[in-house]
């Protein structure tokens, strides 16, 4: 029988602290530390959202306790006279409708355009054109919103007045087109990423089954990329709802429930931007403007939630 070597640490040596062989202590500790840092990064996103919501809401909250303030009026009245001496009214319905109208129009233009462009860039165009288009589209995303506003105010305004005969060229149509142009680059680049993430094996399988390029796109690629595409659209919507400067300049800034796309409107964001500087801190007007911030928050939250539910619905199918 061969001799069995003695167990290490079984004899006169004190048993060492067990640890993974070959891994120094600093590596173990460093890994822990990194894990915690990453965890903190993840949680911080939630903390920031909650924090922003808290501070905005805290500024707005006292108005809710004010006897003269009515939440129903705030939400459903179209009368916005925040600086009136005799008849102060804080009704935001016209502003909400203005925001939604401009956003809806912008999305009606931007979503088909953006998705179409993304499909073209990702599936149909040659490599050289693809690079050029991507650079140009990214450049489009980098244009500051005040420049877009300027274009709305100077270029689009005259174009709209000439072609439609509208009395005022700064209106829902103008704001919608400007917002669409601003959202398209975002929608295109995110959708393009989503389409690029579809494995090539899907494409090859579809093609081998005799699918034409179009059949491949709408039967394979769009279903496979739908989550990413929805995220792209949502980011576009978020951009459109949250945009301030461009809509301030391009929509006419008139409190008005629009009856056609040629009516000027005012949006929630533009109202905050235009009036916050003039409202005395701590006044009711000041607090109502923060409440509008809460309202904006709620609108985007509801849209995101709805989209999430839609996606889940699709997935369960």
């Amino acid at each position: 029988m061969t001799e069995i070597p003695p167990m290490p640490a079984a004899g006169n040596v004190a048993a060492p602290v067990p640890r993974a062989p070959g891994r120094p202590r600093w590596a173990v500790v460093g890994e822990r530390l990194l894990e915690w840092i990453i965890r903190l990064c993840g949680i911080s996103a939630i903390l920031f959202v909650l924090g922003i919501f808290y501070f905005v809401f805290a500024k707005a909250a006292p108005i809710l306790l004010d006897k003269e303030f009515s939440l129903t009026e705030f939400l459903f009245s179209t009368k916005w006279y925040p600086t009136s001496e005799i008849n102060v009214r804080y009704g935001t319905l016209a502003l909400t409708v203005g925001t939604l109208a401009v956003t809806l129009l912008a999305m009606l233009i931007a979503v088909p355009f953006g998705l179409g462009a993304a499909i073209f860039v990702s599936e149909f165009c040659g490599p050289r054109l693809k690079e050029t288009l991507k650079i140009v589209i990214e450049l489009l995303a980098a244009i500051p919103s005040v420049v877009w506003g300027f274009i709305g105010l100077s270029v689009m305004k005259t174009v709209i007045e000439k072609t439609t005969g509208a009395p005022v060229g700064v209106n829902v149509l103008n704001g919608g087109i400007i917002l669409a142009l601003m959202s398209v680059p975002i929608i295109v680049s995110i959708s393009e990423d989503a389409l690029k993430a579809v494995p090539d094996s899907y494409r090859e399988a579809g093609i081998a089954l005799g699918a034409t390029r179009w059949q491949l796109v709408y039967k394979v690629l769009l279903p496979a990329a739908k989550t990413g595409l929805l995220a792209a659209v949502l980011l576009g919507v978020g951009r459109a709802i949250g945009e301030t400067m461009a809509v301030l300049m391009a929509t006419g800034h008139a409190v008005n429930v629009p009856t056609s796309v040629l009516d000027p409107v005012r949006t929630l964001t533009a109202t905050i931007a235009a009036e916050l500087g003039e409202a005395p801190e701590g006044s009711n007007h000041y607090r109502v403007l923060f409440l509008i911030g809460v309202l904006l928050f709620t609108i985007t939250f509801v849209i995101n939630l709805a989209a999430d539910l839609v996606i889940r619905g699709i997935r369960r199918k």
Partner: protein
Amino acid sequence: MVSPKPTIQVQDLRLAYGTKEVIHGISFDIRRHEIFGIIGPAQSGKTSLLRCLNRTIDFTPGVRLEGAIRVDGEDVRQIRDVFGLRRKIGMVAPLPVGLPLSIYDNVAFAPRCAGVKARSELDGLVEHCLRQAALWDEVKDRLHTLGTKLSGGQQQRLTIARALSHQPEILCLDEFSIAIDPVTTMRIEGVLKELQSSMTIILVTNLVQQARRLARRTMFLWNGRIVQLDASDVIFSEDPGNRQTYEYVHGIFG
């Protein structure tokens, strides 16, 4: 016996990715309704050859193709209706690619692309193809769940059912049994033997024994050249007449 007319004629085919030539001028015929085995180690050009056949090679940038491949007498490179060509050829990839659709839609994909719309016709076709691929009994109660949720072996049989769904004249199987257990493999091999009466089958395989079991003729491809092409009886015999073939088939090299 009159030897059947060749379905596929390959003449002096050369294929290069960029400057790297992977197929160095090979010529062979595949006859109608035979099972044609292609064996050979990795990197010998087997998959590239199949991709030339249905012209999915077009999607790889920088490919240069010389020589001719004729399917039913028509040069595939001059063919107008490339979608028609692809419907004529069923292709099964080594690793199953379940499209992100339901089982039913996966199988109904090709017929729908070809314009079949009637529900009853599709239903019949889907059942027929799934039965042919020995998958029907396992999935008949959940045809509308996602195809990608099936196990690897089931997914592979799904891709076989899918490849059969456009009633191809030629069925190409590219190492189909890599992800399947031996029992299922045997079942599919049985299916292939039955299909032989209605279509030409090209069987690319790493399993030498599989080619021996199924193929009437076998081609040994190595580094883009044909080492030997002969009846399987000869290739797998004790004396194939070529030392490399003998050593590869008997596991001495490779």
